[in-house]
């Protein structure tokens, strides 16, 4: 499938294994989008196809209720101003803070039909791989490289090797795509897919809803992969049908028949392949400061001595930072905070899953809990369904859409030493606040743990609830 998409985007061969590859869409955000556009202007360069470029504000915006067009993030106003000025000057569509289409780039790209099956999409953000969930080839990059795409509609790339990850078995009811991808990262390692494009396939993936596939692909970068991809199918088409930027009418029909041809051939060649059964997958929670440092919620944290020398040093350091000891189980570890949101798990289905658990209950005393919808659209829809009330009554802050405390932009972080269960994708040191200890988990685990005030095994739900 990757081959087909690549071949249909190959502009020229640059020699020495490098290809000039067409990028169909570019998405910009406030953290670096303005930097790139400004840098182009300074050098008198033009955006080649402004109609293919979309921008929004998500990273350095406030998410507290009643936010204004500015931001309390230190230096944030400079970033916002640069993005706005750049979009005006280069005639780029900007979904600003007052726009119903605003949201985290990786949430709105599929939601608006900007990311389509078989298209290539570039963004100066590592989680661009998320759009693989609808069968789009997303490429994350730095600001300078996005300038290249803006100027030329292309990227210079070596054709990445392709890795097939086939997933079989039915996920147990309380285990989600998030548990699955955390587990995969644990099994394969943070460089298990290094440089590769990962095609996720198999019955488990086919049975997943599109939003779960987006969650799965979101963390492909945490496997070191260049990007991740799921073959589009009827579920994908149903999801995209009627989205504002997806094709309509006759064009829709033409598009679908092209998309249907993207499915992998039976004998397709892969540089690497693996097949994993996830029928017994239990809820996963990270214990360290890299997503690969993960374990089943009720299993002991590994002893660093049992790991390879390099991993051992990293694990020692991580355990010290996290304030944990080998052999202990994560289940029952007391928490200070809970975060629900991000491009990994800030979509409607994530919020619904958490709300089902929170309905009629309250978070533990003293625990700070936030729910930050991934987009304004998600927020509005959740409000129509009454989810905001459920979160609010459960003691969660109900916020405006954005990245929020997925990372610490300098103002609104969790505190030093605070232990947080979070539906995000990175548990790096200081990621959510200076000295903050982040435990990555599914929205289900986040909700249950918030109520209990400690990391909780979602399987306790299996009997009833």
């Amino acid at each position, binding site marked *: 499938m990757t081959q087909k998409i690549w071949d*249909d985007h190959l502009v020229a061969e640059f020699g020495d294994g490098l290809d000039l590859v067409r990028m169909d869409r570019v998405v910009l955000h406030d953290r670096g989008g303005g930097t790139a556009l400004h840098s182009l202007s300074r050098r008198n360069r033009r955006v080649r196809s402004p109609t293919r470029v979309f921008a929004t504000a998500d990273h350095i915006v406030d998410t507290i209720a009643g936010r204004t067009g500015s931001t309390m993030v230190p230096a944030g106003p400079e970033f916002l101003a640069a993005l706005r000025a750049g979009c005006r000057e280069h005639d780029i*569509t900007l979904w600003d803070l007052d726009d119903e289409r605003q949201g985290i780039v990786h949430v709105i790209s599929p939601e608006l039909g900007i990311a389509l099956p078989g298209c290539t999409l570039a963004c100066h953000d590592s989680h661009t791989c998320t759009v693989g969930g609808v069968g789009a080839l997303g490429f994350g990059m*730095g*600001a300078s*490289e996005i300038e290249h795409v803006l100027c030329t509609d292309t990227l*210079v790339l070596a054709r990445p090797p392709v890795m097939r990850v086939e997933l079989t078995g039915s996920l147990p009811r309380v285990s989600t795509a998030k548990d699955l991808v955390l587990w995969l990262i644990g099994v394969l390692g943070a460089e298990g897919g290094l440089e590769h494009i990962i095609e996720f396939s198999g019955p488990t993936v086919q049975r997943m809803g599109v939003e779960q596939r987006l969650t799965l692909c979101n963390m492909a970068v945490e496997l070191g992969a260049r990007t991740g991809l799921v073959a589009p199918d009827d579920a994908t088409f149903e999801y995209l049908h009627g989205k504002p930027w997806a094709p309509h009418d006759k064009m829709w029909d033409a*598009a679908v028949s092209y998309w249907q041809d993207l499915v992998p051939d039976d004998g397709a060649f892969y540089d690497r392949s693996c097949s994993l059964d996830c029928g017994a997958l239990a809820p996963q929670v990270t214990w360290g400061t890299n997503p690969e440092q993960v374990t089943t919620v009720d299993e002991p944290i590994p002893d660093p001595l049992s790991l390879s020398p*390099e991993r051992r040093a990293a694990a020692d350091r991580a355990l010290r930072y996290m304030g944990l000891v080998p052999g202990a189980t994560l289940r029952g570890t007391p928490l200070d905070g809970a975060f629900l949101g991000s491009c990994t798990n800030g979509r409607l289905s994530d919020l619904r899953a958490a709300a089902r658990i929170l309905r009629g209950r309250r978070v533990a005393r003293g625990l700070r809990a936030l729910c930050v919808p991934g987009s304004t659209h998600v927020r509005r829809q959740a409000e129509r369904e009454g989810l905001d009330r459920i979160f609010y009554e459960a003691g969660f802050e109900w916020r405006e859409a954005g990245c929020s405390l997925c990372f610490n932009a300098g103002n609104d972080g969790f505190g030093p030493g605070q232990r947080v269960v979070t539906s995000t994708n990175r548990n790096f040191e200081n990621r959510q606040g200076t000295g903050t200890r982040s435990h990555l988990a599914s929205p289900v685990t986040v909700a249950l743990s918030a109520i209990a005030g400690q990391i909780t095994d979602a399987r306790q739900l299996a009997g009833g609830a």
Partner: protein
Amino acid sequence: MIVPLRSLAGVAAPLLRHNVDTDTIIRSRDISTTAKTGFGSRLFACWRYAADGSQREEFVLNRPRYRSAAFLVAGSNFGCGSSREAAVWALRDHGIRSVVAISFGSIFFKNCLLNHLVPIALGRQPVLEIVEKLEQPSVEPRLSLDVDACVLRTAWGRTHRFSLPECFLEMLRTGSDPIDATLARIEDIDVFDAEDRGRRPWMLASSRD
């Protein structure tokens, strides 16, 4: 702005850690400007400075022996995580012009090249050996790099070959700009566009309706 780099010689600092992410290389909250420079003092801030802002003597880049490093020698998957180019700008602003590692995060690797920092993936054994030497007090912790020959030399007489695609080598040697190189082939892109309009008309039809 772009300085050609044909060769480089200087002190090398060992930082053999696995999965060093770009959040650690530079924290989000330290990226406080839309400019592409001015990040040097924030490099590895969470490791370099104590809570009160003083330097942690034990951190490798604070040790007199490695303070003036032009090379950083790192573990595997160095620069994984966020695509923030400020990670490269911070290294560069600090004076690092080349990172030698077991392996790299792929976005970071490309960001290095675009900023004329030379990323050299050497694999496990050579890197472990270099780090061991760099840490020996009796050894002069210096490396030199010859971009034309794709060779890395150590002060103790070892030579390691590495490879990079020719167009990137050319970029390093001449200081040429990759956007100009692609714009020189704009006709190829025009031809592609025309064909693509026939093949996938919906990609246009859906734009800006």
